[in-house]
């Protein structure tokens, strides 16, 4: 297992004789374009440092899984990437499509193609799904210099995308997430992703609270939406979501750093052995 071991400070620079897909993170490695590049990212909330130097590069079309125990910093990383105002970046940089991501407002990041499937989707009583999505889609179109969709064009689009996650039409007429079951909320997240067609999706424990059927619908829905350009960062505790999504690369986050990176079999190993052995490896 030594070849998977990475030094937290100089991760992904291990010099193996045979390059493995998850090692192609350096200059010039691989043919596809770098989508997002995170360098030495430090972030804190309420003065408490959570991220302590994250280095991560994701290329077009790649799916990365991010695993780790509760409190390791997985959700913090996703929140920082989408610009949640509660988190403060104290050091490091993130470039997205060559642009300085950290300088952008949350809405600009969304327009640039970043989408977060929330771990806890927020209920917004009184704001209808239709109104919410129409505003979001049209603001994105405005950003791209496209004309707003007409009411009928928009409703047609909603119908098409709803089918992908088998979201009930009745839900689309209700207030955002209000009174939705846990499974419906997660389906609604993927539905929104379908509407907005991001290039980089972060799925933050999208599998939590889902029964087996709902998990399949959500995961298959996500797969239908993937294009060769779509990249994703999938945060999960469980193998079953990864069975559907088939990540290219798996990272283990521990105490605010990526301490181990490997292929899909790393996730399977964690499923059977837990995290303790990794902790021992890195002496934490």
């Amino acid at each position, binding site marked *: 297992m030594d070849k998977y071991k990475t030094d937290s400070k100089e991760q992904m620079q291990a010099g193996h004789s045979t390059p493995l897909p998850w090692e192609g993170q350096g200059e010039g490695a691989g043919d596809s374009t770098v989508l997002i590049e995170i360098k030495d990212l430090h972030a804190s909330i309420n003065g408490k440092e959570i991220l302590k130097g994250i280095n991560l590069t994701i290329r077009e079309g790649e799916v990365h899984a991010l695993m780790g125990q509760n409190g390791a910093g997985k959700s913090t990383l996703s929140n920082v990437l*989408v*610009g*949640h*105002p509660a988190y403060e970046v104290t050091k490091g940089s993130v470039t997205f499509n060559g642009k300085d991501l950290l300088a952008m*407002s*949350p*809405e600009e*990041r*969304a*327009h640039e193609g970043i*989408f*977060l499937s*929330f771990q806890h*989707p*927020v*209920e*917004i*009583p*009184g*704001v209808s799904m239709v*109104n*919410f*999505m129409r*505003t*979001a889609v049209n*603001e*994105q179109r405005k*950003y791209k210099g496209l004309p707003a969709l007409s009411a009928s064009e928009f409703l047609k689009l909603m119908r098409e995308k709803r089918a992908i996650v088998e979201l009930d039409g009745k839900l689309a007429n209700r*207030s*955002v997430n209000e009174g939705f079951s846990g499974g419906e909320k997660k389906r609604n997240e993927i539905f*929104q992703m379908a509407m*907005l067609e991001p290039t980089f999706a972060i799925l933050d424990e999208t599998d939590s609270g889902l029964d087996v059927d709902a998990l399949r619908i959500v995961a298959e829905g996500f797969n239908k939406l993937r294009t060769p350009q779509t990249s994703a960062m999938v945060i999960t505790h469980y193998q079953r979501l990864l069975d559907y999504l088939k990540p290219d690369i798996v990272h283990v986050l521990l105490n605010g750093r990526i301490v181990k990176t490997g292929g899909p079999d790393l996730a399977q190993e964690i499923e059977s052995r837990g995290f303790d052995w990794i902790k021992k490896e890195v002496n934490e």
Partner: protein
Amino acid sequence: MNSEQQYIELFGQCEAMICKHSAEVLNAPRTKAFADFKQQGFPTRKVEDYKYTDVSKLFAPDYGLNLNRLDIPVNPYDAFRCDVPNMSTALYFVVNDSFYKGDKGQVDKQARNGTVCSPSTRQLVNSSAGNGVLMGSLKEMAEQYPELVAKYYGKLADTSKDAVVALNTMLAQDGVFLYVPRNVIVEKPIQLVNILRADVNFMVNRRVLIILEEGAQVRLLACDHTMDNVDFLSTQVVEVYVGERAVFDFYELEESHTSTVRFSHLYVKQEADSNVLLNGMTLTNGITRNTTQVTLAGEQAEINLCGMAIADKEQHVDNHTFIDHAVPNCRSNELYKYVLDERATGAFAGLVLVRPDAQHTSSQQTNRNLCATREARMYTQPQLEIYADDVKCSHGATVGQLDESALFYMRQRGISEKEARLLLMFAFVNEVIDTIRLDALRDRLHYLVEKRFRGEIGKCQGCTMCK
């Protein structure tokens, strides 16, 4: 000089003139009202009911009055053109306190176009003529039907309990009268456009009397507008009698300007099995104090009392409500919502009284408020007094800010912060708008509220359905 003094002197000097230009039924209670006014004086802010609105100060300036009933030139049809034909209403205008009869030719033309009802004010309202519905000038109705008007006029609005009501009773010369006879259902909603119009700082005392006999049904929308850039002080006393099984919907929409002071007192008495919806919405205003008192006097009566206020700058909105469960088996639902921005202040005091005999009362009172800035202030005081032991009552009040997690959720989807805030503010007040039982009015309110939040109602250009 006390604020009261100028009104005492005014009445002393002008009583004969006031009476001359009014009707006997309206003149009858003036002497008692005057005595009650002198005895009470304006309430100070130490009086609990007026803690948040400084009455004395607001009545202190020198306003003009039109006691001689001179015609004030105005053509409301020019100012309030109907361009939202989705909802057809029977449309009436009240200029200051006078029922507008207007230029006959023009009004007839409008009537033919279907934008207003027959003009000559007496018997109209409904398509089926001869149903006995009366709608028109209170003064004229009081002259023509003195017994009918005298039976109800001034019986609910107690001049000994509120100086502003006493003042209105002293000075009011005209206003509106609506009478719906037994079992008559008025299909077409009635719209009453109140216009404040004057060339000098001006005081208006308007009086409204509404009578629904048993089984009658009517829906009324009243909207308040100011046409001129002078200071206005208006007092309004509305008395409503709702007979057994009668159904009454009353929507009041204020779209006045920032130098308007409005005092409104609305009294409603409900008999058995009646159903009333009151919805008072303040979209733009200066200083507003609305007092609403509902007495549930017959069993199985139901009141839905709602209101909302959207205020910014230095606007002030004070709603004071009292629901009296006097008999058993009645229901009351109360919902008030405020959105306060900039330096606006809001006050809500709501008392629900359940009397000892009023068993099986069901009552719910909710007041929710958003303060969008640190400077905005909301004072809320929900009150429940229960003297019966088998009742279902609840009340609650909250003051808060916009939900930050919802804001962020929307921004992550690409909705700008400004737009996200607007969506949340609409959502907040939509609960009140959605109580409206007229589809076209509800849609129109959604539109108006959106415009209001976007700051696009700078100037009053018309009202709900005639803009």
